[in-house]
């Protein structure tokens, strides 16, 4: 589904009202994809630790003979990651989440004294099933170039409040807030979404 585009009220304040349609409710979720590239192979034996989204570290034993990036990448992809499936293509390891939707938590790689060098993670965010992305634009066709915070309220077509319960809410990019179905809360055609948003100060003093 394309983003639902609304306009800034006064440059930094936003208000939007939108009635969900069947296409919003039927959005098929997609899984998050994480990618790393091994740029230097091992020069000493030891463990390379992989932590995905703050989960338990998975230690991968590499040998001093794993001198090429592809050898190390293959071993990393051979690890067991509870929430992700791993594949390898040359020196690139791809982790695909086993569930759909936006994920949070830190990704990290600990190379210890193996001599291995690994790139930072690239992230392609997942999308939850049943999803609406509210995009706030300025005067042009692109979203405002800063992060926002939003409060979302939902009522039924009969104007009865709907508890957000376990709705999944994310801020995938500047000027955009996305709400997706959880196990209890479901994006439903006919629901009316009221969104009040604001340019955000996210640096506490």
């Amino acid at each position, binding site marked *: 589904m394309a983003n639902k585009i609304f306009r800034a009220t006064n*440059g930094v304040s936003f208000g939007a009202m939108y009635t969900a349609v069947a296409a919003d409710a039927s959005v098929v979720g997609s899984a998050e994809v994480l990618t790393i590239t091994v740029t230097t192979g091992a020069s000493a034996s030891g463990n390379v630790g992989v932590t995905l989204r703050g989960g338990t570290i998975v230690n991968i034993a590499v040998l001093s003979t794993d001198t090429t990036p592809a050898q190390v990448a293959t071993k990393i992809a051979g690890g067991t990651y509870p929430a992700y499936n791993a594949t390898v293509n040359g020196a690139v390891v791809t982790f695909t989440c086993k569930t759909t939707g936006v994920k949070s938590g830190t990704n990290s790689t600990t190379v210890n004294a193996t001599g291995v060098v690994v790139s930072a993670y690239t992230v392609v965010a997942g999308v939850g099933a049943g999803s609406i992305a509210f995009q706030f634009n300025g005067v042009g066709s692109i979203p405002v170039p800063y992060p926002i*915070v939003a409060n979302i309220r939902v009522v039924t077509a009969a104007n009865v409040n709907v508890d957000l319960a376990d709705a*999944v809410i994310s801020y995938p990019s500047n000027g955009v807030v996305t709400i997706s179905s959880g196990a209890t809360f479901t994006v439903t055609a006919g629901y009316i979404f009221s969104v009040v948003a604001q340019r955000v100060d996210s640096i506490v003093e």
Partner: protein
Amino acid sequence: MPNRIFRVTNGVSFGAKYTIVAADDTAGNVTIQFNGTGTPSVAYPIVASISVLRAGVNVPLADAVITYPSNGCVKIADGSTFLVTTNDVYYIVAQRADITAE
């Protein structure tokens, strides 16, 4: 606990994102303070709408205790169900308030 200070967006409108730290969790409350350009909070009352996410999932405010202890400040405290919890992310949209109904 010291107030968590953020800056006004445009003089009367406020947006803040804040991740709860252990000290807030221990205190059982957090006070979000909106300042103008100086060090004191803005000199007028505000109203605020707060949403809380845990790992991207909405956390119902349930019986959270929400108060406005002074101008420019909003305080969220533990209820019996809702608890101020480390690593929860608070999203606050606030506005200068007219508190006198005509």
